[in-house]
Protein backbone atom coordinates (compact mmCIF):
# COMPACT_ATOMS: atom_id res chain seq x y z
CA UNK A 1 0.00 0.00 0.00
CA UNK A 2 1.39 3.43 -0.94
CA UNK A 3 2.03 5.98 1.81
CA UNK A 4 -0.72 8.30 0.64
CA UNK A 5 -3.22 5.44 0.59
CA UNK A 6 -2.09 4.41 4.09
CA UNK A 7 -2.60 7.97 5.36
CA UNK A 8 -5.94 8.43 3.57
CA UNK A 9 -7.34 5.23 5.05
CA UNK A 10 -6.17 6.09 8.56
CA UNK A 11 -7.63 9.60 8.19
CA UNK A 12 -10.95 8.17 7.07
CA UNK A 13 -10.85 5.72 9.99
CA UNK A 14 -10.51 8.67 12.39
CA UNK A 15 -13.45 10.43 10.72
CA UNK A 16 -15.59 7.29 10.90
CA UNK A 17 -14.86 7.04 14.64
CA UNK A 18 -15.79 10.67 15.29
CA UNK A 19 -18.94 10.51 13.15
CA UNK A 20 -20.01 7.32 14.89
CA UNK A 21 -19.56 8.88 18.36
CA UNK A 22 -21.43 12.01 17.22
CA UNK A 23 -24.30 9.91 15.88
CA UNK A 24 -24.63 8.21 19.26
CA UNK A 25 -24.65 11.57 21.02
CA UNK A 26 -26.85 13.30 18.48
CA UNK A 27 -29.48 14.31 21.03
CA UNK A 28 -26.84 15.99 23.20
CA UNK A 29 -25.40 17.61 20.08
CA UNK A 30 -28.82 18.98 19.12
CA UNK A 31 -29.53 20.30 22.61
CA UNK A 32 -26.22 22.13 22.89
CA UNK A 33 -26.63 23.51 19.38
CA UNK A 34 -30.26 24.54 19.52
CA UNK A 35 -30.96 25.70 23.08
CA UNK A 36 -29.07 29.00 23.14
CA UNK A 37 -30.32 30.41 19.80
CA UNK A 38 -33.80 29.03 20.46
CA UNK A 39 -34.11 30.82 23.79
CA UNK A 40 -32.55 33.98 22.42
CA UNK A 41 -34.76 34.16 19.36
CA UNK A 42 -37.87 33.29 21.34
CA UNK A 43 -37.34 35.98 23.97
CA UNK A 44 -35.98 38.82 21.82
CA UNK A 45 -37.77 38.34 18.53
CA UNK A 46 -41.02 36.69 19.60
CA UNK A 47 -41.82 37.69 23.19
CA UNK A 48 -40.48 41.25 23.03
CA UNK A 49 -42.47 42.29 19.93
CA UNK A 50 -45.55 40.64 21.45
CA UNK A 51 -44.98 42.75 24.59
CA UNK A 52 -44.61 45.85 22.45
CA UNK A 53 -40.85 46.13 23.05
CA UNK A 54 -39.57 45.47 19.55
CA UNK A 55 -36.05 46.57 18.60
CA UNK A 56 -35.70 48.06 15.14
CA UNK A 57 -32.79 49.89 13.69
CA UNK A 58 -32.97 53.27 11.94
CA UNK A 59 -33.45 51.70 8.51
CA UNK A 60 -36.45 49.74 9.73
CA UNK A 61 -34.57 46.43 9.73
CA UNK A 62 -36.11 44.05 12.29
CA UNK A 63 -34.01 42.67 15.14
CA UNK A 64 -34.75 39.17 13.83
CA UNK A 65 -33.14 40.08 10.51
CA UNK A 66 -30.20 41.72 12.26
CA UNK A 67 -29.31 38.78 14.51
CA UNK A 68 -30.05 35.87 12.16
CA UNK A 69 -26.57 35.78 10.60
CA UNK A 70 -24.95 36.33 14.00
CA UNK A 71 -26.81 33.45 15.64
CA UNK A 72 -25.94 31.12 12.76
CA UNK A 73 -22.30 32.23 13.22
CA UNK A 74 -22.47 31.49 16.97
CA UNK A 75 -23.92 28.04 16.24
CA UNK A 76 -20.95 27.45 13.92
CA UNK A 77 -18.43 28.84 16.42
CA UNK A 78 -19.73 26.91 19.42
CA UNK A 79 -19.06 23.57 17.70
CA UNK A 80 -15.35 24.31 17.68
CA UNK A 81 -15.46 24.74 21.46
CA UNK A 82 -17.95 22.02 22.37
CA UNK A 83 -17.09 19.51 19.66
CA UNK A 84 -13.30 19.84 19.67
CA UNK A 85 -11.78 21.95 22.45
CA UNK A 86 -13.70 20.34 25.29
CA UNK A 87 -13.20 16.65 24.43
CA UNK A 88 -9.64 17.20 23.20
CA UNK A 89 -8.60 18.92 26.41
CA UNK A 90 -9.66 15.81 28.36
CA UNK A 91 -8.34 13.30 25.82
CA UNK A 92 -4.90 14.91 25.90
CA UNK A 93 -4.65 16.18 29.45
CA UNK A 94 -6.64 13.74 31.53
CA UNK A 95 -7.44 10.32 30.03
CA UNK A 96 -4.67 10.41 27.39
CA UNK A 97 -6.92 8.32 25.18
CA UNK A 98 -5.82 10.39 22.17
CA UNK A 99 -2.67 8.20 22.17
CA UNK A 100 -4.25 5.36 20.23
CA UNK A 101 -5.21 7.77 17.46
CA UNK A 102 -1.77 9.39 17.57
CA UNK A 103 -0.32 5.91 17.07
CA UNK A 104 -2.29 5.47 13.82
CA UNK A 105 -0.20 5.07 10.68
CA UNK A 106 -0.36 8.67 9.47
CA UNK A 107 1.58 11.86 10.26
CA UNK A 108 0.50 13.15 13.69
CA UNK A 109 -0.35 16.57 12.22
CA UNK A 110 -3.11 14.86 10.20
CA UNK A 111 -4.69 13.62 13.45
CA UNK A 112 -4.99 17.29 14.46
CA UNK A 113 -6.23 18.35 11.02
CA UNK A 114 -8.88 15.63 11.17
CA UNK A 115 -10.19 17.34 14.31
CA UNK A 116 -10.55 20.63 12.40
CA UNK A 117 -12.34 18.95 9.48
CA UNK A 118 -14.66 16.99 11.76
CA UNK A 119 -15.46 20.12 13.73
CA UNK A 120 -16.24 21.94 10.47
CA UNK A 121 -18.63 19.15 9.54
CA UNK A 122 -20.46 19.58 12.87
CA UNK A 123 -20.56 23.33 12.31
CA UNK A 124 -22.21 22.96 8.90
CA UNK A 125 -24.85 20.63 10.39
CA UNK A 126 -25.38 23.10 13.26
CA UNK A 127 -25.84 25.99 10.81
CA UNK A 128 -28.42 24.00 8.84
CA UNK A 129 -30.33 23.12 12.02
CA UNK A 130 -30.29 26.59 13.55
CA UNK A 131 -31.14 28.56 10.42
CA UNK A 132 -34.82 27.55 9.98
CA UNK A 133 -35.43 28.03 13.68
CA UNK A 134 -34.20 31.58 13.66
CA UNK A 135 -36.07 32.24 10.44
CA UNK A 136 -39.49 31.02 11.48
CA UNK A 137 -39.79 31.86 15.20
CA UNK A 138 -39.59 35.70 15.19
CA UNK A 139 -42.92 37.53 15.40
CA UNK A 140 -41.72 40.27 13.04
CA UNK A 141 -40.71 39.41 9.47
CA UNK A 142 -37.11 38.27 8.88
CA UNK A 143 -35.69 39.27 5.51
CA UNK A 144 -33.23 36.80 4.09
CA UNK A 145 -31.92 37.21 0.58
CA UNK A 146 -29.14 35.09 -0.85
CA UNK A 147 -27.48 37.10 -3.61
CA UNK A 148 -24.78 34.58 -4.28
CA UNK A 149 -24.76 30.93 -3.23
CA UNK A 150 -20.99 30.57 -3.71
CA UNK A 151 -20.48 33.48 -1.25
CA UNK A 152 -22.82 31.85 1.27
CA UNK A 153 -21.26 28.38 0.93
CA UNK A 154 -17.72 29.83 0.96
CA UNK A 155 -18.46 31.83 4.09
CA UNK A 156 -20.10 28.92 5.91
CA UNK A 157 -17.20 26.60 5.04
CA UNK A 158 -14.50 29.10 6.00
CA UNK A 159 -16.30 30.02 9.23
CA UNK A 160 -16.68 26.31 10.07
CA UNK A 161 -12.98 25.59 9.44
CA UNK A 162 -11.97 28.68 11.43
CA UNK A 163 -14.14 27.53 14.32
CA UNK A 164 -12.47 24.10 14.21
CA UNK A 165 -9.06 25.78 14.24
CA UNK A 166 -10.07 27.90 17.26
CA UNK A 167 -11.30 24.73 18.99
CA UNK A 168 -8.08 22.84 18.27
CA UNK A 169 -5.95 25.71 19.56
CA UNK A 170 -7.99 26.08 22.76
CA UNK A 171 -8.18 22.31 23.28
CA UNK A 172 -4.42 21.95 23.15
CA UNK A 173 -3.71 24.97 25.37
CA UNK A 174 -6.36 24.72 28.09
CA UNK A 175 -5.92 22.05 30.76
CA UNK A 176 -9.04 20.08 31.76
CA UNK A 177 -9.17 21.69 35.20
CA UNK A 178 -9.37 25.15 33.62
CA UNK A 179 -12.18 24.40 31.17
CA UNK A 180 -14.87 26.15 33.24
CA UNK A 181 -12.66 29.23 33.48
CA UNK A 182 -12.13 29.13 29.72
CA UNK A 183 -15.87 29.59 29.14
CA UNK A 184 -15.89 32.75 31.25
CA UNK A 185 -12.62 34.22 30.02
CA UNK A 186 -12.71 33.23 26.35
CA UNK A 187 -16.09 32.04 25.08
CA UNK A 188 -18.38 34.64 26.70
CA UNK A 189 -16.34 37.70 25.56
CA UNK A 190 -15.89 36.24 22.07
CA UNK A 191 -19.65 35.79 21.77
CA UNK A 192 -20.67 39.17 23.19
CA UNK A 193 -18.04 41.07 21.19
CA UNK A 194 -18.48 38.96 18.07
CA UNK A 195 -20.89 41.32 16.24
CA UNK A 196 -23.61 38.74 16.77
CA UNK A 197 -26.34 41.03 18.13
CA UNK A 198 -25.27 44.15 16.23
CA UNK A 199 -23.43 44.73 12.94
CA UNK A 200 -19.77 45.78 13.10
CA UNK A 201 -20.56 49.13 11.41
CA UNK A 202 -22.87 50.03 14.32
CA UNK A 203 -19.88 49.99 16.67
CA UNK A 204 -18.53 53.23 15.10
CA UNK A 205 -19.92 55.15 18.08
CA UNK A 206 -17.45 53.26 20.34
CA UNK A 207 -14.45 53.48 18.06
CA UNK A 208 -11.88 51.76 20.31
CA UNK A 209 -14.15 48.74 20.66
CA UNK A 210 -14.81 48.68 16.93
CA UNK A 211 -11.05 48.34 16.40
CA UNK A 212 -10.45 45.95 19.30
CA UNK A 213 -13.07 43.44 18.13
CA UNK A 214 -11.18 43.02 14.87
CA UNK A 215 -9.06 40.48 16.77
CA UNK A 216 -12.16 38.34 17.33
CA UNK A 217 -12.68 35.62 14.67
CA UNK A 218 -16.42 35.48 15.37
CA UNK A 219 -16.75 39.05 14.01
CA UNK A 220 -15.78 37.87 10.54
CA UNK A 221 -18.04 34.82 10.75
CA UNK A 222 -21.03 37.02 11.66
CA UNK A 223 -20.21 39.71 9.11
CA UNK A 224 -19.54 37.17 6.37
CA UNK A 225 -22.95 35.62 6.93
CA UNK A 226 -24.54 39.09 7.00
CA UNK A 227 -23.14 39.65 3.49
CA UNK A 228 -24.44 36.27 2.35
CA UNK A 229 -27.87 36.19 4.02
CA UNK A 230 -29.05 39.71 4.88
CA UNK A 231 -27.19 41.99 2.46
CA UNK A 232 -29.42 44.99 3.29
CA UNK A 233 -27.99 45.19 6.84
CA UNK A 234 -24.74 47.16 7.20
CA UNK A 235 -21.75 44.83 6.80
CA UNK A 236 -18.02 44.68 6.15
CA UNK A 237 -16.77 44.41 2.57
CA UNK A 238 -16.69 40.84 1.35
CA UNK A 239 -12.94 40.79 0.75
CA UNK A 240 -12.31 41.75 4.37
CA UNK A 241 -14.31 38.83 5.78
CA UNK A 242 -12.85 36.33 3.35
CA UNK A 243 -9.24 37.41 3.92
CA UNK A 244 -9.73 37.50 7.69
CA UNK A 245 -11.36 34.07 7.77
CA UNK A 246 -8.63 32.62 5.57
CA UNK A 247 -6.04 34.11 7.94
CA UNK A 248 -7.90 32.63 10.93
CA UNK A 249 -7.93 29.18 9.35
CA UNK A 250 -4.23 29.47 8.43
CA UNK A 251 -2.85 31.01 11.63
CA UNK A 252 -5.06 29.28 14.17
CA UNK A 253 -4.85 26.03 12.23
CA UNK A 254 -1.06 26.25 12.32
CA UNK A 255 -1.03 27.20 16.03
CA UNK A 256 -3.47 24.40 16.85
CA UNK A 257 -1.49 21.74 14.97
CA UNK A 258 1.79 22.94 16.56
CA UNK A 259 0.14 22.90 20.00
CA UNK A 260 -1.20 19.41 19.36
CA UNK A 261 2.24 18.11 18.32
CA UNK A 262 3.82 19.68 21.41
CA UNK A 263 1.28 18.05 23.69
CA UNK A 264 1.31 14.52 22.28
CA UNK A 265 4.99 14.18 21.33
CA UNK A 266 7.97 14.86 23.60
Amino acid at each position, binding site marked *: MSDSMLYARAF*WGLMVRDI*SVLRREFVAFMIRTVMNPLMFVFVFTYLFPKMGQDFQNARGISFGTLILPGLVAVAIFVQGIMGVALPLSFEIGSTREIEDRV*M*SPLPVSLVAIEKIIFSALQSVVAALVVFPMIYFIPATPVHVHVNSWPVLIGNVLLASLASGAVGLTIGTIVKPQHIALMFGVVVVPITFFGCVYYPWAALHSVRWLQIAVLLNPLVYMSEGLRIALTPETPHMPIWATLVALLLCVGLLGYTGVRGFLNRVLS
Partner: protein
Amino acid sequence: MPTREDIVSIRGLTKRYAGKVPVEAVRNIDLTVKRGELFGLLGPNGAGKSTTISVCTTRTLPTSGTVQIAGLDVVATPAQARKQMGVVPQYNTLDRQCTVWENLYFHCRYFGYTSAAAAKRANELLEMFRLTERGKSFVRELSGGLAQRVQIARAIAHQPEILFLDEPSAGLDPQSRLALWDSIRQLLSQGITIVLTTHYMEEADELCNRVAIIDHGKILVCDTPQNLKSSVGAQKVINLHLGSSDPQLQQTLNQLPGVKSSETNKDGIRIFVDNLDGLLPRIIEVTGPKLKDISVTETTLETVFIKLTGRDLRE
Protein backbone atom coordinates in the same frame (compact mmCIF):
# COMPACT_ATOMS: atom_id res chain seq x y z
CA MET B 1 24.87 -3.10 11.27
CA PRO B 2 21.41 -4.53 12.03
CA THR B 3 20.71 -7.91 10.46
CA ARG B 4 17.41 -9.29 9.16
CA GLU B 5 16.82 -11.08 12.45
CA ASP B 6 17.04 -7.80 14.38
CA ILE B 7 13.58 -6.31 14.71
CA VAL B 8 14.67 -3.53 17.07
CA SER B 9 17.99 -1.85 16.57
CA ILE B 10 18.91 1.02 18.90
CA ARG B 11 22.22 2.80 18.26
CA GLY B 12 23.71 5.52 20.48
CA LEU B 13 20.29 6.61 21.75
CA THR B 14 20.29 9.66 24.01
CA LYS B 15 17.24 11.60 25.20
CA ARG B 16 17.67 14.87 27.07
CA TYR B 17 14.64 16.77 28.34
CA ALA B 18 15.17 20.51 28.45
CA GLY B 19 13.78 22.52 31.35
CA LYS B 20 14.87 24.40 34.42
CA VAL B 21 16.73 21.28 35.47
CA PRO B 22 17.63 19.43 32.24
CA VAL B 23 17.29 15.67 32.60
CA GLU B 24 19.20 13.09 30.60
CA ALA B 25 16.69 10.24 30.73
CA VAL B 26 18.58 7.93 28.33
CA ARG B 27 22.34 8.03 27.80
CA ASN B 28 23.94 6.56 24.72
CA ILE B 29 22.09 3.25 24.67
CA ASP B 30 22.85 0.44 22.20
CA LEU B 31 20.38 -2.42 22.07
CA THR B 32 19.20 -5.11 19.69
CA VAL B 33 16.09 -7.26 19.92
CA LYS B 34 15.82 -10.34 17.73
CA ARG B 35 12.65 -11.51 15.99
CA GLY B 36 10.49 -13.80 18.08
CA GLU B 37 12.13 -13.12 21.43
CA LEU B 38 10.64 -11.72 24.60
CA PHE B 39 12.94 -8.99 25.69
CA GLY B 40 12.74 -7.24 29.05
CA LEU B 41 13.97 -3.84 30.15
CA LEU B 42 14.36 -4.13 33.91
CA GLY B 43 15.12 -1.20 36.16
CA PRO B 44 13.78 0.98 38.96
CA ASN B 45 11.29 3.81 38.38
CA GLY B 46 12.92 6.68 36.54
CA ALA B 47 15.70 4.50 35.08
CA GLY B 48 14.84 5.43 31.47
CA LYS B 49 12.85 2.34 30.47
CA SER B 50 9.68 4.15 29.46
CA THR B 51 11.62 6.86 27.62
CA THR B 52 13.41 4.16 25.60
CA ILE B 53 10.07 2.52 24.73
CA SER B 54 8.58 5.91 24.00
CA VAL B 55 11.30 6.67 21.42
CA CYS B 56 10.91 3.20 19.88
CA THR B 57 7.16 3.78 19.51
CA THR B 58 7.58 7.23 17.87
CA ARG B 59 6.03 9.21 20.71
CA THR B 60 9.30 10.78 21.85
CA LEU B 61 11.94 12.25 19.56
CA PRO B 62 15.53 11.25 20.39
CA THR B 63 18.13 13.93 21.14
CA SER B 64 20.68 11.82 19.28
CA GLY B 65 21.11 8.28 18.02
CA THR B 66 18.90 6.11 15.84
CA VAL B 67 16.16 3.55 16.35
CA GLN B 68 14.98 1.16 13.67
CA ILE B 69 11.90 -1.04 13.97
CA ALA B 70 11.70 -3.80 11.36
CA GLY B 71 14.25 -1.84 9.34
CA LEU B 72 12.24 1.41 9.47
CA ASP B 73 13.73 4.51 11.09
CA VAL B 74 11.26 5.78 13.72
CA VAL B 75 12.17 9.45 13.14
CA ALA B 76 12.30 9.45 9.34
CA THR B 77 9.29 7.14 8.75
CA PRO B 78 7.20 7.16 11.95
CA ALA B 79 3.84 6.36 10.31
CA GLN B 80 5.25 3.34 8.45
CA ALA B 81 7.06 2.15 11.60
CA ARG B 82 3.82 2.39 13.61
CA LYS B 83 2.20 -0.08 11.22
CA GLN B 84 4.73 -2.70 12.34
CA MET B 85 4.20 -2.23 16.08
CA GLY B 86 1.55 -2.52 18.75
CA VAL B 87 1.82 -0.50 21.94
CA VAL B 88 0.31 -0.94 25.38
CA PRO B 89 1.17 2.14 27.46
CA GLN B 90 1.42 2.25 31.25
CA TYR B 91 -2.01 3.84 31.66
CA ASN B 92 -5.44 3.05 30.26
CA THR B 93 -5.78 4.85 26.92
CA LEU B 94 -8.91 3.02 25.75
CA ASP B 95 -11.44 5.22 23.98
CA ARG B 96 -13.91 6.10 26.75
CA GLN B 97 -16.66 7.05 24.33
CA CYS B 98 -16.63 3.66 22.65
CA THR B 99 -17.48 0.11 23.64
CA VAL B 100 -14.88 -2.66 23.89
CA TRP B 101 -15.88 -3.95 20.45
CA GLU B 102 -15.70 -0.45 18.97
CA ASN B 103 -12.24 0.11 20.45
CA LEU B 104 -11.03 -2.90 18.48
CA TYR B 105 -13.08 -2.10 15.39
CA PHE B 106 -11.96 1.53 15.09
CA HIS B 107 -8.33 0.63 15.78
CA CYS B 108 -8.50 -1.69 12.76
CA ARG B 109 -10.11 1.07 10.70
CA TYR B 110 -7.19 3.40 11.59
CA PHE B 111 -4.90 0.73 10.17
CA GLY B 112 -6.70 0.60 6.85
CA TYR B 113 -9.10 -2.33 7.37
CA THR B 114 -12.40 -2.16 5.50
CA SER B 115 -15.54 -2.04 7.64
CA ALA B 116 -16.27 -5.76 7.13
CA ALA B 117 -12.66 -6.84 7.77
CA ALA B 118 -12.44 -4.65 10.89
CA ALA B 119 -15.68 -6.10 12.28
CA LYS B 120 -14.45 -9.64 11.61
CA ARG B 121 -11.10 -8.96 13.28
CA ALA B 122 -12.80 -7.32 16.29
CA ASN B 123 -14.98 -10.41 16.80
CA GLU B 124 -11.93 -12.67 16.44
CA LEU B 125 -10.05 -10.69 19.09
CA LEU B 126 -12.98 -10.71 21.51
CA GLU B 127 -12.98 -14.48 21.27
CA MET B 128 -9.20 -14.84 21.48
CA PHE B 129 -9.02 -12.73 24.64
CA ARG B 130 -12.22 -14.17 26.18
CA LEU B 131 -13.95 -10.80 25.98
CA THR B 132 -16.98 -11.72 23.88
CA GLU B 133 -19.42 -11.09 26.75
CA ARG B 134 -17.85 -7.68 27.32
CA GLY B 135 -18.06 -6.54 23.70
CA LYS B 136 -20.86 -4.07 24.36
CA SER B 137 -19.45 -2.76 27.66
CA PHE B 138 -18.09 0.74 27.81
CA VAL B 139 -14.53 1.20 29.01
CA ARG B 140 -15.54 2.83 32.30
CA GLU B 141 -17.34 -0.41 33.28
CA LEU B 142 -14.14 -2.52 33.06
CA SER B 143 -11.87 -3.57 35.93
CA GLY B 144 -8.13 -2.85 35.68
CA GLY B 145 -7.31 -6.40 34.58
CA LEU B 146 -10.01 -6.45 31.90
CA ALA B 147 -9.03 -3.03 30.59
CA GLN B 148 -5.46 -4.26 30.32
CA ARG B 149 -6.63 -7.29 28.34
CA VAL B 150 -8.58 -5.06 25.95
CA GLN B 151 -5.53 -2.82 25.55
CA ILE B 152 -3.40 -5.81 24.54
CA ALA B 153 -6.10 -7.07 22.16
CA ARG B 154 -6.28 -3.62 20.59
CA ALA B 155 -2.49 -3.31 20.33
CA ILE B 156 -2.20 -6.51 18.28
CA ALA B 157 -5.42 -5.93 16.31
CA HIS B 158 -3.57 -4.77 13.19
CA GLN B 159 -1.24 -7.81 13.39
CA PRO B 160 2.01 -6.00 14.13
CA GLU B 161 5.37 -7.74 14.10
CA ILE B 162 6.33 -6.43 17.52
CA LEU B 163 4.43 -5.56 20.68
CA PHE B 164 5.70 -3.05 23.25
CA LEU B 165 4.33 -3.41 26.76
CA ASP B 166 5.21 -0.60 29.14
CA GLU B 167 4.96 -1.78 32.77
CA PRO B 168 2.12 -4.16 31.84
CA SER B 169 1.50 -5.52 35.33
CA ALA B 170 1.69 -2.24 37.26
CA GLY B 171 -1.45 -1.87 39.35
CA LEU B 172 -2.77 -5.37 38.60
CA ASP B 173 -3.85 -7.79 41.32
CA PRO B 174 -1.85 -11.07 41.49
CA GLN B 175 -4.52 -13.06 39.65
CA SER B 176 -4.73 -10.57 36.78
CA ARG B 177 -0.94 -10.55 36.61
CA LEU B 178 -0.86 -14.32 36.10
CA ALA B 179 -3.57 -14.03 33.43
CA LEU B 180 -1.49 -11.32 31.76
CA TRP B 181 1.59 -13.57 31.79
CA ASP B 182 -0.47 -16.30 30.10
CA SER B 183 -1.58 -13.88 27.39
CA ILE B 184 2.01 -12.76 26.84
CA ARG B 185 3.25 -16.34 26.49
CA GLN B 186 0.41 -17.14 24.09
CA LEU B 187 1.29 -14.16 21.89
CA LEU B 188 4.94 -15.16 21.92
CA SER B 189 4.02 -18.66 20.78
CA GLN B 190 2.21 -17.09 17.83
CA GLY B 191 5.52 -15.62 16.67
CA ILE B 192 5.13 -11.99 17.75
CA THR B 193 8.19 -10.30 19.22
CA ILE B 194 7.56 -8.70 22.62
CA VAL B 195 9.49 -5.98 24.41
CA LEU B 196 8.36 -5.19 27.92
CA THR B 197 9.52 -2.86 30.65
CA THR B 198 9.13 -3.81 34.27
CA HIS B 199 10.44 -3.07 37.70
CA TYR B 200 9.30 -6.48 38.94
CA MET B 201 12.31 -8.79 38.79
CA GLU B 202 10.11 -11.92 39.07
CA GLU B 203 8.28 -10.81 35.93
CA ALA B 204 11.51 -10.36 34.00
CA ASP B 205 12.91 -13.64 35.36
CA GLU B 206 9.73 -15.60 34.68
CA LEU B 207 8.94 -14.34 31.19
CA CYS B 208 11.92 -12.94 29.35
CA ASN B 209 14.38 -14.67 27.01
CA ARG B 210 16.78 -11.81 27.51
CA VAL B 211 16.90 -8.94 29.96
CA ALA B 212 18.67 -5.60 29.88
CA ILE B 213 19.15 -4.04 33.30
CA ILE B 214 18.90 -0.28 33.03
CA ASP B 215 19.69 2.39 35.61
CA HIS B 216 20.18 6.16 35.37
CA GLY B 217 19.58 5.98 31.62
CA LYS B 218 22.34 3.44 30.96
CA ILE B 219 22.27 -0.26 30.20
CA LEU B 220 24.35 -2.01 32.82
CA VAL B 221 24.14 -5.57 31.46
CA CYS B 222 22.15 -7.48 28.86
CA ASP B 223 21.87 -11.27 28.82
CA THR B 224 19.56 -14.20 29.57
CA PRO B 225 18.17 -14.20 33.13
CA GLN B 226 20.09 -17.42 33.81
CA ASN B 227 23.43 -16.00 32.68
CA LEU B 228 22.82 -12.81 34.63
CA LYS B 229 22.14 -14.73 37.82
CA SER B 230 25.17 -16.97 37.24
CA SER B 231 27.32 -13.88 36.88
CA VAL B 232 26.81 -13.15 40.58
CA GLY B 233 29.01 -16.22 41.22
CA ALA B 234 26.99 -17.43 44.18
CA GLN B 235 23.74 -19.31 44.81
CA LYS B 236 22.56 -17.49 47.91
CA VAL B 237 22.77 -14.09 49.56
CA ILE B 238 22.94 -13.60 53.34
CA ASN B 239 21.87 -10.14 54.45
CA LEU B 240 23.17 -9.02 57.83
CA HIS B 241 21.31 -6.03 59.27
CA LEU B 242 23.60 -4.17 61.62
CA GLY B 243 22.20 -0.66 61.53
CA SER B 244 25.45 0.67 60.09
CA SER B 245 28.29 -0.44 57.82
CA ASP B 246 31.28 -2.20 59.37
CA PRO B 247 34.26 -2.70 57.02
CA GLN B 248 36.34 -4.39 59.68
CA LEU B 249 33.72 -7.04 60.31
CA GLN B 250 33.41 -7.52 56.55
CA GLN B 251 37.10 -8.44 56.34
CA THR B 252 36.68 -11.02 59.10
CA LEU B 253 33.61 -12.52 57.43
CA ASN B 254 35.40 -12.76 54.09
CA GLN B 255 37.88 -15.15 55.64
CA LEU B 256 35.21 -17.62 56.75
CA PRO B 257 35.23 -20.83 54.68
CA GLY B 258 32.38 -20.91 52.11
CA VAL B 259 32.08 -17.13 51.76
CA LYS B 260 32.60 -16.23 48.09
CA SER B 261 32.41 -12.46 48.41
CA SER B 262 30.71 -9.71 50.39
CA GLU B 263 29.89 -6.04 50.28
CA THR B 264 28.85 -3.41 52.76
CA ASN B 265 25.83 -1.20 52.50
CA LYS B 266 24.45 1.52 54.74
CA ASP B 267 22.48 -0.95 56.82
CA GLY B 268 25.02 -3.76 57.16
CA ILE B 269 26.76 -6.43 55.08
CA ARG B 270 25.69 -8.65 52.18
CA ILE B 271 27.46 -12.02 51.92
CA PHE B 272 27.45 -14.17 48.76
CA VAL B 273 27.72 -17.93 49.28
CA ASP B 274 27.01 -21.17 47.41
CA ASN B 275 25.60 -23.14 50.34
CA LEU B 276 24.83 -22.53 53.96
CA ASP B 277 26.27 -25.75 55.47
CA GLY B 278 27.43 -24.80 58.95
CA LEU B 279 27.99 -21.22 57.92
CA LEU B 280 25.15 -19.41 59.70
CA PRO B 281 26.27 -20.26 63.28
CA ARG B 282 29.81 -19.09 62.41
CA ILE B 283 28.53 -15.82 61.00
CA ILE B 284 26.33 -15.17 64.04
CA GLU B 285 29.26 -15.97 66.32
CA VAL B 286 31.62 -13.61 64.50
CA THR B 287 29.06 -10.81 64.28
CA GLY B 288 28.04 -11.04 67.92
CA PRO B 289 25.58 -8.64 69.55
CA LYS B 290 25.81 -6.14 66.65
CA LEU B 291 23.50 -8.40 64.62
CA LYS B 292 19.95 -7.03 64.57
CA ASP B 293 18.46 -9.28 61.91
CA ILE B 294 19.55 -11.86 59.33
CA SER B 295 17.87 -13.02 56.13
CA VAL B 296 18.81 -15.48 53.38
CA THR B 297 17.60 -15.20 49.75
CA GLU B 298 18.22 -17.07 46.53
CA THR B 299 20.21 -15.24 43.86
CA THR B 300 17.70 -13.34 41.71
CA LEU B 301 17.83 -10.60 39.12
CA GLU B 302 17.46 -8.24 42.03
CA THR B 303 20.74 -9.60 43.40
CA VAL B 304 22.29 -8.84 40.03
CA PHE B 305 20.95 -5.31 40.23
CA ILE B 306 22.22 -4.88 43.79
CA LYS B 307 25.64 -6.22 42.76
CA LEU B 308 25.76 -3.75 39.90
CA THR B 309 24.44 -0.65 41.62
CA GLY B 310 24.70 -1.28 45.36
CA ARG B 311 21.02 -0.38 45.62
CA ASP B 312 17.71 -2.19 45.84
CA LEU B 313 15.42 -2.11 42.79
CA ARG B 314 12.76 -0.51 44.97
CA GLU B 315 14.98 2.20 46.44
